[in-house]
């Protein structure tokens, strides 16, 4: 469908108004919300993600595309709900106890939303028990833990232990990221995955959801 390609193109260029107009037009013409989401929006954001990975697009341009996607999703949401279509997955994230750094985590959250995931951000300095309670409330598929300091990275382990102690470990996958951590550290503390940057984080989330 020509309009779906048009929608993807406007999305890539970050033209929110045009994205909104084409979304409405497609709905009026009888396109299913699922088709608009998959073949227009997610197809467009896949190109955006790839261009960011190759350095063709800067973050502000990517975020402009993500904002345009939000505008479209707002229009689609009631239709998607009526059709029983769910998001690609619910991801919860937070910077662990004792750590005030959140720009990297925020970046990952925005990129994930742009890729069609539902994101619940618990903020920074998140106590282990808060992760536990939020899992019980929101039932996410994946939790992202962030830390920037050598003295807070061990609080990732504490958070994972609290989640396990509450009997919730098998219900969520855990992804970690931040300057001092590594794949080895992820393995050591029992996380499911490690991502070194926001683009990789989106890739890892997709892998974990598919697994």
């Amino acid at each position, binding site marked *: 469908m020509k309009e779906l390609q048009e929608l993807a193109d406007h999305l890539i260029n970050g033209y929110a108004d045009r994205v909104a107009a084409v979304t409405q037009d497609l709905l009026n013409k009888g396109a299913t919300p699922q088709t608009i989401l998959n073949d227009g929006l997610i197809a467009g954001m896949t190109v955006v993600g790839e261009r*960011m990975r190759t*350095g*063709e697009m*800067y*973050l*502000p*341009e990517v*975020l*402009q595309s993500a904002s345009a996607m939000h505008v479209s999703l707002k229009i689609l949401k009631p239709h998607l709900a009526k059709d029983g279509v769910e998001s690609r997955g619910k991801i919860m994230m937070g910077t662990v106890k*004792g*750590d*005030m750094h*959140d*720009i990297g985590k*925020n*970046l990952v959250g*925005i990129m994930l939303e742009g890729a069609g995931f539902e994101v619940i951000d618990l*903020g*920074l*300095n998140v106590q282990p028990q808060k992760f536990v309670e939020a899992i019980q409330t929101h039932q996410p598929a994946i939790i992202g833990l962030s830390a920037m*300091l*050598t*003295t*807070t*990275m*061990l*609080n990732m382990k504490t958070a994972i232990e609290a989640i396990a102690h509450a009997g919730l470990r098998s219900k969520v996958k855990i992804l970690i990221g931040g300057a*001092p951590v590594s794949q080895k550290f992820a393995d050591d503390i029992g996380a499911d995955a490690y991502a070194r*940057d926001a683009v990789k984080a989106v890739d890892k989330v997709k892998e974990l959801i598919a697994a």
Partner: protein
Amino acid sequence: MTETQVRTHYTTLAIGKAEGLMFGRTPKPVSCGYGLELGSGMVYPEINFTLPMMMIDESTWPSVVAQYDEMGEMIGRTATRLHLRGVMIEFELLPPMTERPEWGAEITQVLDRHLKTMYENHGVAGALRVTPTDIRDATRPPPLRSGIEWETLMASFDECAKAGAHVLSIESVGGKEVNDEAMMYGDVEGVIFALGVLAPRDMEHLWTNIVSTCKRYGVVPGGDSACGFANTAMQLASQGMLPGVFAAMIRGASAVRSLVAYECGAFGPSKDCAYEGPILKAITGAPIAMEGKSASCAHFSPVGNVAAAMCDLWSNESVQNIRLLSGPAPEAFLELLTYDCRLFNAALSSGSEQTYQRMLVDSDVHHSPQALVLSPESTICIASAIVREQTPYRQTVAAGLEALRVIRDAVRDKTLPLAAKEHHWLDKTESALTALPAEEEGMMDSMIERYGHLFAPSSYGL
């Protein structure tokens, strides 16, 4: 402000010409600690270190103190081995050490004791810079002027000053909550609002209080750093996430909020991660700390050599106390800094400093717009643009525009290659800056509408 203190407004440059901006020399040297003279003809190393991977709590606290004791002892040993004439130690508190002021004070005492021993037994001049963590952004929007975080932060400064700190500094975060968002979205107006409207208001309130503490204890009020603003931009640009020209504009513009510390009574040395330091030095004449290639243990940067061109202290930013093949990492990096400083000082004593500085500058400025805006020539241009204006907002806009003009001139002269997409952002950023209202009142309503959910107006006296 305290009743007696009047905020200084700089209208001229303390160093008016690029040739006058030199490493190791400044019109307003600072004496601190145990006989350390900064900016009077020598460059000294500033060594900073942090803990290896470990928790900080009641049960580990004795081990934490032991780590700092070991690092302090090791610095004394290395300084003697390398015949160092002077050294600055920076103790950058980790969040729990600020949240419990007595903890920060305890380590301050430990490091002060090592510096004193070094001075008394071996004649090595030394000083201790103590930098509490700005813990005020633990909640969002950050309550900057009241509440437990504010009170604890002030108590931390007080306790550390009492415990033996010689210089107090901070990397403050006022305005960062807006800048983070605006920067990620490439919103020039939002960045200027954060840097030129919000941040200077917080800086005035914060630094008035820090200076007052310093006066009470006879401690040197060092300075602040736009690390959370301009260094974040620099890192994102280095990772290909932000345009380099946009990050360079932020660097220039960020100098204004850091200048406020001096307007309120700070007199240096500035913080090592404040790459806006040369601009501050040109305006105030105060000595500055800088970091570059020898701080790659902490982070990468496109400004490794040029950052050294005007420094008075040369720092490694931070290194974990881990074991390398040679020995403990802090010892290895103190040795590295020491050899860097020997070169600076040999150049100064032999009259070769202009040649050496030219090499430091020229080896970097053709590779990155971020390096270009740190050259002595760019520094004078940006500093001049700042002192020509009257308000922090207008100064911030002027500094940003001047940084872009410097870049545009270099591109025109073919001394700075720029990718096509950077050209697009150069034009776009310049247009956005030019279109800003003449006074901050003209942007207030739209900024509150766009970013009002992120900041508390009362934190900024608004």
